[in-house]
């Protein structure tokens, strides 16, 4: 009988990957999106290098449309842990007034994909950890743990570098970069069980609470500030909701739930009937939309 549980094995694998990157890559960074996967990644990074500080900075791409509780959480955690937290916003997009209501898919491209590329170029990072998991979506299911990007930050799914055993080839040419996914083999259930086991702090939005919401195209959207535009016939109401994933508030659907403790969330998730990406509005557009955005440089 294996003395390690499946969570122990997943943890050890992620730690191994992080240490390999720190040892071999010239200038790594850890992308931090404030969500539960990022909280797990940060926790793993603290453990991987203990008692040393993670030997790389953290980077948050701020679209300025994140939930307020998210940005507060980000700043507080960075301060408490004494880690370096870089925050980057596409100022040009901001100045042009790019917003999630009028710009549709272009909003995600300009404020997330382009902003990420700009930030990586600005600091010259050669490797960026991302919290992507293979169970999230079909094209992610085929991506390697070390995923290579050309000088345009584009992914070439047809020509992925072979990845054997636990031997990672981290060599790149100037201008190229690597996206590294240490949580590749984790599932949503693993993430929640690990948060529970390790008592990892997460944004309060994951817990059910009475919040102001509107119902829109089958999603429950939280009205987080005065910039939220109500459509005709929509009215704001208070509902006890929580979120399974976090992003920009006008694009993130919540769910009605009574789960206001970690145990209740885990119980609810393990019995869940819909996969978590249903609450991300952009993924529904068409079959293959995720792969297309990834090829263009989305995380």
């Amino acid at each position, binding site marked *: 009988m294996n003395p*390690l*549980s499946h969570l122990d094995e997943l943890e050890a694998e992620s*730690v191994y990957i992080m240490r390999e990157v720190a040892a071999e890559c010239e200038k790594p960074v850890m992308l931090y999106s404030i969500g539960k996967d990022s909280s797990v990644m940060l926790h793993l990074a603290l453990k991987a290098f203990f008692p040393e500080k993670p030997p790389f900075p953290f980077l948050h791409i701020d679209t300025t449309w994140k939930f307020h509780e998210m940005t507060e959480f980000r700043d507080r955690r960075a301060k408490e842990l004494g880690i370096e937290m870089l925050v980057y916003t596409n100022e040009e997009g901001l100045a042009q007034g790019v917003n999630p209501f009028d710009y549709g898919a272009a909003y995600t491209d300009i404020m997330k994909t382009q902003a990420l590329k700009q930030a990586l170029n600005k600091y010259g990072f050669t490797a960026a950890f991302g919290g992507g998991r293979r169970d999230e979506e079909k094209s992610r299911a085929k991506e390697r743990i070390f995923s290579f990007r050309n000088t345009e930050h584009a992914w070439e799914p*047809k020509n992925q570098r072979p990845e054997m055993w*636990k031997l990672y080839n981290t060599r790149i040419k100037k201008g190229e970069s690597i996206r590294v996914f240490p949580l590749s083999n984790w599932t949503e259930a693993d993430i929640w069980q690990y948060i529970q086991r390790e008592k990892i702090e997460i944004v309060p939005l994951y817990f059910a609470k009475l919040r102001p919401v509107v119902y829109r195209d089958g999603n429950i959207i939280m009205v987080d500030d005065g910039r939220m535009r109500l459509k005709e016939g929509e009215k704001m109401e208070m509902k006890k909701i929580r979120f399974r994933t976090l992003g920009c508030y006008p694009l993130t659907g919540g769910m009605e739930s009574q789960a206001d403790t970690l145990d209740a969330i885990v119980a609810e998730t393990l019995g869940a009937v819909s*996969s978590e990406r249903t609450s991300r509005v952009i993924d529904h557009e068409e079959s*293959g939309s995720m792969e297309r955005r990834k090829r263009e440089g989305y995380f």
Partner: protein
Amino acid sequence: MKDLLKFVTCGSVDDGKSTLLGHMLYDAKLLYTDQRQALELDSRIGNKDGRIDYSLLLDGLMAEREQGITIDVAYRYFHTQNRSFIAADAPGHEEYTRNMAVGASFAQLALILVDASRGILVQTKRHIRICILMGIRHYVFAVNKMDLLSYNRESYLKIQKELEKIIDEISSEAFQKQNASAAVLPYESVYILPVSAAEGDNITKKSGNMTWFEGCPLLEYLETVDVTYKNSGSGFMMPVQRVVKPQSRCAWKTSSLEDTNFRGFQGQIENGLLHTGEEITALPSREKAKVEEIFVTDRKVETAVAGQAVTLRLDKEIDISRGSVLVTGKGPDVSSMCTAVLLWMDEVPLLAGKNYYIKVGTKMLPATVMSIKYSIDVNTGMHLPAQQLQKNEIACCDLVFSEKTVFTSFEQNKALGGFLLIDRISNQTAACGVIRHSLRRSDNLTWQETTIGRKERSEQKGQSPKTLWFTGLSGAGKTALANEIEKRLWKMGKHTMLLDGDNVRMGLNKNLGFKEQDRIENIRRVSEVAKLFNDAGLIVLASFISPFERDRENAREIIGRDDFIEIYVSTSLKECERRDVKGLYRKARAGEIPNFTGIGSPYEVPENPDIVINTEGKSLSENADDLMRQLEKWLL
């Protein structure tokens, strides 16, 4: 406590792998409903009769859906009451063998599909061979499409018998060439069962159509099979990933640490276990120290076991860095030569004599494939003579590392017996390989340490021995310039030796032609000779067209980075052709010399030459003045 089973599914193109896995997830209610809805929607678009196409669940990439085949590994995750599973769905097509090997390298168990209506194919054997090569020790054969044979028992039994025979053949063939230490069987368990992936027979529940079959259904078997790795019983072993630097402590949980000057060694334990207070040996230095503290990530423990990520603190400072291996007891060999089996994965073929980076454990260092002993036909297992190795081919080779390093045979330990070869120019992962055994020759042929060395010889001559490597087109003026420089150095009382391409080919290298492997061997010999002359204390002037970056990189590696000065004589093709001293360009233009550099074959301009000399419009003496000035810092 739930454990984890990682398995790979393989089979040939239409054996129905994706369908089988998709059906298993669907039936066991392991899909979320929206994935199930998307699946039903997707298959109505792609399918004629509106039935669910379970394979769409796994074939995720758009290119694959268009082509209807699986080109890369897809990973699927599911949990049952008893186990967590990760399934790697590997492509079956021969063209994507390397992607299949990626899936196999990750797995503890292989689920191999056989199409009962077609019987065992060449591909089936190839897949077994690759799984054995990549170290899988547990096998399940699902004899699929039994519905097409009306669930006939006799047809199944025939295939079952054949499979049992084949796996024995392939495993003994893979291991017969090894030394006696390989008493380990290449596989531990085999389970064969009849199924229908499309109809769902024997997938999650016993089939009513095949009551004659007494075994359990597939999912039940996967839930219960014991795949615990039975290691060979040797002691603790851990390759060092990194050294914890004491100066940058974290604010997180470190207040309880007493030692403020913490220096630790991080890695994952690959074998055995370790207790506080035990003595470890660091390889290759063989220095010893006692274990003071063990941390499993942030948690201090008394004992740590294989699989755990740890940080170790020792009682004294000894020579340990990334790539060192910590062991208890004697530990594995330290050697610089081995015999290994390679799976070639690069578009550019392998040629013997070429220099690569090798990554074994956490160590990366230069290595050369000295010889291809034989290639192995991946379909039949036959050993064939081979000069070079193409993508997706397998061969047994001898490798030499640039220094003594720590490794084991692959059977003994996967982590220190498997390796990658990395192309030094393109950075591509060119091959993966498994070490069969170390070669004693490197121990017997230890470098003779002579009392009088390069240092003494060059001090006596009052010079620093370097190799000046002149590269450039034919007729660029390399040899004329090298000759002039040698004269000047000689006048200054320097001791020199000039090596010229044409002259070397008339003597030392007269058995070599102009094919690619000959070209590589030509440069290798010249570089070794240059190095010997440098050892003798001489300044070497080497004049070779050497049009390819990889060849020059090879020379640089052999001669030594600090002693190799690359001088690019950058005279343009137009000017060289105008001069045409030997009449070669005219012949090449007339088609009489194929692959002539600059005409039929490219010249790769050096990316970072130490010195560039353009001879156009200047006299030889002006060029020599210029070059002497630039050489000052190295030679004087």
